């Protein structure tokens, strides 16, 4: 039996890897194109697009586009703004949404199912439809900051953070994950004397690594890619994130090399975040024995 099955199995594994390689290429090619192009002068860049050379670092290779990009836009500021806003939002939303998910999954309260249904229903509302009403709301909200009480949230960091702290998708992810955990775990902790918050903090969150990683990645990407909202609420350069910063490179005639250099630079934080999460993710699975 085993000897008959062997070649078949090898073939299957081979096909699987072939497929994975193809998929990887589909995802890698744009990145390779972006990085390679960022090293070429505009003329050569455009000429190469019609051949395989588009993916190869050949011809007149230099870092000139990067220097030009830094001269054109305050890239450091934009990246800082994006990372700052995204980071705070990810951390805040993981905390708030996991608390909400915990309540929906484990606590009994009147109207729970109705509230959860409403939360999930908001998943189908596109952001574009509520962007303008939301702008009008934040424009009139008070905020107490270092400069005392102020009205209107435009041109700030918090206008980019607070509206996105709680979202249905993240709550939903946590609810689903928590519901699949054994109920006895919570009960045992309750009998051991844990308050609900201690159950959350000491028993549930430590074994929620997989869902935390998933939610963090989705949230990070959504926030880092924000364009419409920051464009609406940040008129001054000081608070603008990377996506809005892209505008600096689409002037009268677009400098494609610089665009590619800029894109390469702002992709770095995303890659770093992925690598960090992947390690945390694997560590969390290894330590709890709970699979994602």
């Amino acid at each position, binding site marked *: 039996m085993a000897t008959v099955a062997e070649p078949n199995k090898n073939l299957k594994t081979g096909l699987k890897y072939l497929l994975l390689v193809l998929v990887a290429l589909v995802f890698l090619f744009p990145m390779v194109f972006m990085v390679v192009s960022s090293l070429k002068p505009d003329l050569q860049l455009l000429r190469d697009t019609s051949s395989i050379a588009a993916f190869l670092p050949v011809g007149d290779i230099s870092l000139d586009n990067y220097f030009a990009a830094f001269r054109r836009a305050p890239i450091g500021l934009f990246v800082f703004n994006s990372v700052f806003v995204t980071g705070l939002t990810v951390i805040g939303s993981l905390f708030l949404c996991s608390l909400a998910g915990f309540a929906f999954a484990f606590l009994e309260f009147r109207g729970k199912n109705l509230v959860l249904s409403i939360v999930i229903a908001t998943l189908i509302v596109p952001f574009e439809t509520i962007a303008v009403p939301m702008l009008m709301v934040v424009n009139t909200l008070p905020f107490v900051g270092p400069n005392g009480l102020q009205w209107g949230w435009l041109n700030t960091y918090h206008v980019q953070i607070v509206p996105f702290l709680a979202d249905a998708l993240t709550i939903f992810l946590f609810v689903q994950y928590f519901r699949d955990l054994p109920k006895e775990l919570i009960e*045992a902790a309750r009998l051991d004397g844990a308050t609900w918050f201690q159950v959350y903090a000491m028993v549930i969150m430590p074994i929620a690594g997989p869902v935390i990683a998933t939610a963090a990645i989705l949230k990070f990407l959504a926030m880092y890619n924000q364009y419409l909202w920051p464009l609406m609420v940040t008129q001054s350069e000081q608070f603008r994130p990377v996506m809005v910063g892209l505008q600096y490179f689409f002037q009268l005639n677009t400098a494609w090399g610089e665009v590619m250099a800029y894109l390469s630079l702002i992709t770095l934080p995303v890659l770093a975040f992925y690598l960090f999460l992947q390690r945390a993710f694997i560590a969390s699975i290894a330590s709890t024995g709970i699979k994602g």
Partner: protein
Amino acid sequence: MAGLEFKGVHKSYGKVDVIKGVDLSIAHGEFVVFVGPSGCGKSTLLRMVAGLEDITAGELTIGERVVNQVQPRDRGVAMVFQSYALYPHMSVYDNVGFGLRLKKTPKDIRDQKIREAARILQMEHLLDRKPAQLSGGQRQRVAIGRAIVRQPEVFLFDEPLSNLDAALRMDMRMEISKLHQELGATMIYVTHDQVEAMTLADKIVVLNAGVVQQVGSPLELYHHPENLFVAGFIGSPKMNFLKVTAEKTDAGLTIAGADLEETTIAASGSQVSTGDRITLGLRPHDFIESADGRLRGVVELVERLGNETIVNVRLAGGTQVIAALDGDSHLEVGHEARFGFAPEKLHLFDADGQTIAR
């Protein structure tokens, strides 16, 4: 000192009544087993003691206190779950010590108690491991250890052994029994396995469909079941039941049926009138091979276990019964045989399944 008192305890989920009025006293230090078929409400009753389920109606007292509204952690109870419910991210040491940590017990006292529990349960060498690195039996020990360190007044066990293999189950059963003697705490133990119930309990509570059928010591239940359900549930192999018709005579009660030739037994028979259809119960171990026995049938299966011989017999009326005979019985499959019994070993049940007083 913590005994328990159930007064008219009810539990419903919406319109479904799961526990239908339980009245029960449990003395301090008693080992009580709730036993009954799957779905009869054993776990629900236990969870109400733990405080994990609300009590729909009635009153539950632990020690001197009515605990209906008391939080689980303030009830002085600890529970061992069927699924162990160990915290997967914590070492055995931290699992056992979690309750103490929450109570802000000083570190040195905590350490002492954890090691003491580990010693009692012989798992000192496991303290650094994670639950995923333990076998089923070891996990169960940790779960028990977690209960012990909190020094509860009442231990609750919900089918703690049903995920273990047979041999391990025997060992753990003995350990739990030993633990009860050592700690002297009140223990409530839930199982669907009547053998576990018989071997562990000071007092058995037989439940069926949310109603207490009978409360008593293992031998009381075995020898004096109050109804058909208890008679059929307690004892292995199960009690045999035959349909017979009763007739009142001067000597007592004369019973006969398709399976049973006319037999007269001494009984006041005050609950019975002539012509009643009643049920006769006879335990397998009360069958006696005898040439003038009142039960006649054909042997259909013989199992020789050495110390005894289990035979399946189809009686004249077609009812199949199981008899446990001496190890050296010569019966073979296909033999026609006769069996007798000592009349005082008979159990009689009226049409409602209640035991007829003798």
